[in-house]
């Protein structure tokens, strides 16, 4: 029970007044970020990252990860009350959440959403607590080829499991890698793709990209959709909460399924958004009331929320243990680790015990604090969305600009942020996924160096990637993920060939 001991020690780190205060601030900021259009988990954390440079890494990550939990909670508020998903992963929550709210059951829908996200996150944290040390220990024996194989797996899962067309996913991803390669090559000292300019010497910072792509891009999109937010009024009182909690245990199976899907999609970086859709789809298929989904079923709120929160939480597992983030927000947090001078990866569990376990303990506490805060403060957040967009929009642009500037104290970055904003707008509208771009931009250098080191080891033979059982099976899994759409189609055809008679109706 080494984990329990370490966790208790983590609680002693996290449970100081100082860190509890940061937790509270983080949750409040996070919900605010989740509620406001154009500020999401990823760019919210990116904007606030420079403010934490002077803090101790443990306090900083506690605050930033709490922003993340807050944003996950906050997304549900706008989805249910306004039918506007504040975050992509809460799109599936609107399907049943908003009809419930319109039918006068907003309080119930919100309680169900918050509680099930809490349950999803809590189970995911338990998974992290016990699985992360094992993964870290296991990956201590990883060499460069294994690390590259894991990165390959990450990117192949994006192509295979993502919703977009593979061509676009690949293009977005490679764009990220290409941008990451700009600047000084640290191994050979060669300047790459700088074209003789001074400004490109530093390369592209992913924080600028995140702020532009998600922040400015989102504002442009929201502007296009029109500015009127029509919301349902919500009142949550202890009675409603209690009544809803009495109903929720009925849906334990849906919640468990959602959590499992979420954990799986979070660890293999499918991400929270596909997890929430998948969980909703499966719940619809297996539920006795599946036909009524979309008209305001509580089960239809439970399913996506558990999955999204579980995925969002478990995305931190590969980030901590392997240094490979499972979501854009986790990628930003990873960037934070590097800036604070911590090298993510298996050694983190050996060398920075206080940091790791303080963070894990803060995940338990943060989610409890988060649940209490959102349940008690919903009306305030709803009121913020009633502030006209013509005030919110310029303020968000200002916040993004400040965030972009503070990364390197460079005004050019602010202009660059606008360029990324246009790219984000175009890509979102053309269904290019942004998450692989950001991840590739963050991981680019790491992927390249592990690839190069492997090539050095093997003197240029690609066969090193299937030279032993471990690296071979990871690569095999990566290929399976890459060609999953093709494979699943083939499997479906085979199955249909076998039993033509009881063909199930295709479910969306």
């Amino acid at each position, binding site marked *: 029970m080494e984990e329990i001991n370490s966790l208790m020690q983590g609680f002693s780190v996290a449970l100081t007044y100082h860190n509890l205060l940061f937790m509270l601030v983080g949750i409040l900021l996070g919900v605010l970020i989740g509620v406001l259009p154009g500020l999401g988990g990823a760019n919210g954390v990116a904007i606030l990252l420079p403010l934490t440079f002077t803090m101790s890494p443990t306090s900083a990550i506690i605050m930033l990860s709490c922003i993340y939990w807050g944003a996950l909670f906050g997304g549900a508020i706008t989805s249910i009350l306004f039918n506007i998903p504040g975050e992509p992963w809460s799109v599936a929550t609107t399907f049943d959440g908003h009809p419930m709210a319109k039918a006068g059951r907003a309080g119930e829908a919100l309680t169900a959403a918050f509680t099930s996200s809490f349950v999803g996150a809590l189970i995911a944290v338990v998974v992290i607590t016990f699985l992360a040390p094992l993964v870290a220990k296991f990956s201590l024996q990883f060499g460069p080829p294994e690390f590259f194989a894991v990165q390959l797996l990450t990117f192949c899962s994006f192509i295979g499991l993502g919703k977009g067309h593979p061509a*676009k996913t690949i*293009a977005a991803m490679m764009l990220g890698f*290409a941008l990451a390669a700009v600047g000084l090559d640290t191994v050979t000292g060669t300047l790459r793709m700088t074209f003789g300019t001074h400004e490109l010497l530093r390369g592209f910072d992913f924080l600028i990209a995140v702020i532009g792509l998600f922040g400015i891009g989102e504002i442009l999109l929201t502007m296009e959709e029109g500015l009127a937010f029509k919301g349902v009024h919500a009142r949550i009182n202890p009675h409603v909460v209690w009544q809803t909690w009495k109903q929720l245990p009925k849906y334990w199976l849906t919640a468990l399924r959602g959590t499992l899907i979420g954990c799986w999609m979070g660890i293999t970086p499918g991400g929270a958004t596909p997890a929430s859709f998948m969980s909703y789809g499966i719940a619809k298929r297996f539920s006795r009331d599946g036909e009524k989904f979309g008209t305001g079923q509580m089960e239809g709120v439970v399913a996506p929320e558990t999955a999204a929160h579980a995925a969002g939480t478990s995305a931190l597992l590969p980030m901590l243990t392997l240094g490979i983030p499972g979501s854009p927000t986790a990628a930003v947090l990873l960037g934070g680790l590097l800036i604070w001078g911590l090298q993510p990866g298996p050694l983190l569990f050996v060398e920075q015990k206080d940091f790791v376990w303080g963070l894990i303990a803060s995940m338990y506490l943060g989610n409890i604090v988060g649940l209490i805060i959102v349940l008690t403060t919903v009306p305030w957040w709803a009121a913020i969305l009633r502030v006209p967009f*013509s005030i919110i929009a*310029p303020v968000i642009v200002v916040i993004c600009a400040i965030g972009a*500037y503070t990364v390197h104290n460079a005004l050019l970055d602010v202009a660059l942020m606008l360029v990324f904003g246009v790219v984000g707008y175009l890509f979102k509208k053309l*269904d290019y996924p942004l998450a692989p771009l950001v991840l590739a931009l963050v991981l680019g250098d790491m992927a390249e160096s592990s690839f190069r080191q492997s090539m050095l080891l093997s003197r240029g033979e690609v066969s090193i990637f299937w030279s032993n059982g471990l690296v071979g099976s990871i690569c095999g899994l990566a290929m399976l993920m890459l060609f999953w759409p093709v494979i699943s189609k083939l499997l479906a055809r085979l199955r249909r060939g076998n039993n033509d008679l009881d063909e199930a109706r295709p479910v969306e």
Partner: protein
Amino acid sequence: MSDNDPAEDDSQHGVSTKAVEMVVAAAILMLGLVVMADSHRVGAGWASDGPQAGYFPFYIGLILCFASAWTLWRTLFSGKDIAGVFVSHKKLRLVLSVFVPSMIYVAATYFIGIYVASALFIGAFMYWHGRFPWTKIVPVSLLVPVAVFLLFEVWFLVPLPKGPLETLIGY
């Protein structure tokens, strides 16, 4: 959230999705070629001490070209799912009405600092888009920069770009 539903109000007139799709794919293709060319320039092969600097990016560029060529191909020859309007003229005007002021705002920060520029930007935006009375514009557009100033310069000691006004009051 791709709402390119042609039945929507007046969105018949505008930039076609197909055109934008092609332009974006072509731009990515160009970028891929640039990446490949530059990687070739710095050496994409094998030197005595291992892979050269362009070794990895070269293949990135290659895959980038392949992926965008794939998208181009799909756009040209299987056009049924991409028919429709990318953005109507009306919506484009709305988008530009945010983007152009933002550009001016960013340019202005070079000269007058981020605080004054922010105040003017928020004020102008509220005036043009929200048609707020001055009694609301002035307090909001002043409060936000002041709050930012306190947060960054005073509490977190992070300096932001400043202009002549800040020099005048001694910062």
